[in-house]
């Protein structure tokens, strides 16, 4: 890996580990292996959002040309959000693409992702299904995001209605993950989700 990238990651790690956010456990970064090419990030769901109380793992890959090109960031923890793919975890955020500036850091990237969780942009979606739900049925979107945060990211709110519906599908031999994904995309209409799975 290029020397400039390694030097910068080293300095950034020093910065981020000394930051207030890490002190408040709001964000966290650690190295994966010894090459400085890959890091593991973690952000706390922002307060007053469906993600509150949950923690999301991120995969951060530092390109050879860092900091001239943005790091490649992806959600490892599954999340229900219009700008994050509910399948792959790919993120749609301008600063991770053409709006990247070399003055940005791992810390500002993670804070930007937190801000993205707090203010979804369904008009510039990564996951079209989630985005449509977010626009058309905000109530269901809120509950679904909360449920996913509970199921995958240690969020506190348990939704017994949704749990029951998932159990009904599991009794039919569907895996829990598929059942949750189908029910979520069908606005928790059990009949439609069953049809979607078995057609």
């Amino acid at each position, binding site marked *: 890996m290029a020397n*400039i990238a390694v*030097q*910068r990651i080293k*300095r*950034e790690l020093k*910065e981020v580990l*000394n*930051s*207030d956010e890490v002190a408040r456990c709001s964000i966290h970064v650690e190295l994966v292996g010894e090459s400085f090419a890959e890091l593991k990030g973690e952000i706390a769901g922002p307060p007053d959002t469906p993600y509150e109380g949950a923690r999301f793992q991120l995969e951060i890959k530092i390109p050879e*040309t860092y*900091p*001239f*090109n943005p790091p490649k960031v992806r959600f490892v923890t599954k999340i229900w959000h219009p*700008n994050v793919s509910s399948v792959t975890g790919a993120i*749609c*955020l*301008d*600063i991770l693409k053409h*709006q*990247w*500036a*070399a*003055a*940005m*850091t791992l*810390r*500002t*990237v993670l*804070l*930007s992702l*937190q*801000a*993205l969780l707090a203010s979804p*942009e369904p008009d*510039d979606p990564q996951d079209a299904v989630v985005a449509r739900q977010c626009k058309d049925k905000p109530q269901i979107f809120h509950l679904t995001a909360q449920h996913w945060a509970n199921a995958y990211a240690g969020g506190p709110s348990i939704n017994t209605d949704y749990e029951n519906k998932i159990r009904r599908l599991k009794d039919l031999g569907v895996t829990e993950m598929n059942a949750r994904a189908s029910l979520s995309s069908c606005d928790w209409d059990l009949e439609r989700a069953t049809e979607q799975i078995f057609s």
Partner: protein
Amino acid sequence: MEGVEDSAGTANLADLHDENKRYCWVCFATDEDDCTALWVQPCQCSGTTRWVHETCLQRWVDEKQKGNSLERVHCPQCNTQYIIVFPPIGKLILVLDIADRIIYRVCPFIAAGVVIGSIYWTAVTYGALTIMQAVGAKEGLALMEQSDPLFLLIGLPTVPVMLILGRLVRWEEALLGFLNKNIPRLPIVKDLLPTFQVASNCVRPHAQGTETPPFSDPVSATRVLCGALIFPTIAVLFGKLLFHPVRSNLQKTFFGGIAFLALKGVLKIYYKHQIFIRQHHRRVLDFAKQPTGVKGRTNTSSNP
């Protein structure tokens, strides 16, 4: 979507490095890390993005320009356009640079000119050959020598153009349409050509076998081109075969051309009409009553 602006980061980094210390917003190195590097202050930024290593900024500018060294680059933070100057240029280099740009600009036009010129001279040659074919080699040459050169330069290339345009007039189809429409109304001809009755009563418009228009695909365009360019040769051939008592070569060719067009038109109308009749009389069989060996028959019938 906007990312979190750097204000929070700025404050935080300022705690780590006090205001007097310079530090590069690209590589994050300070004076202590590298005391020899050249520093610049290229924009209106203050705080942590005020200073940058010249080499780091050069690399950032390269990254943004992606090879186009004339593209303007702005500071990603304060959006100030960077002022980039080049060292003074030697006269020879300046001349070479200008020559390089002129050549780059002019070459497409020259290439287009060569292509158009080639097509033009091909058309002139074809026109001359056609005239020699039509009136005879010696007479043709004599005729062209007598003519005004300007007239030849304009007139000769119009020969192939006119042939192609003429080929685009689809008179056979118009005539066929006219026959289909009008023959059933005429009392005597109606009985002589009973098959035209069918066309007027047809309820399956696709069965009319409308031909694809020319230039709708490359193959039909080449057909128009070949047909148009070979036409004078065929006209001469027909003239020699059918009208050899006629003295004048030009008249022979003229009559030969008309005879060929008429023959071709009649054949085409006949062919189209028969194909249409065949389409009209096709039947779909009941599956159960399908006689053995019909598979082979259907195959051949789909391949007229």
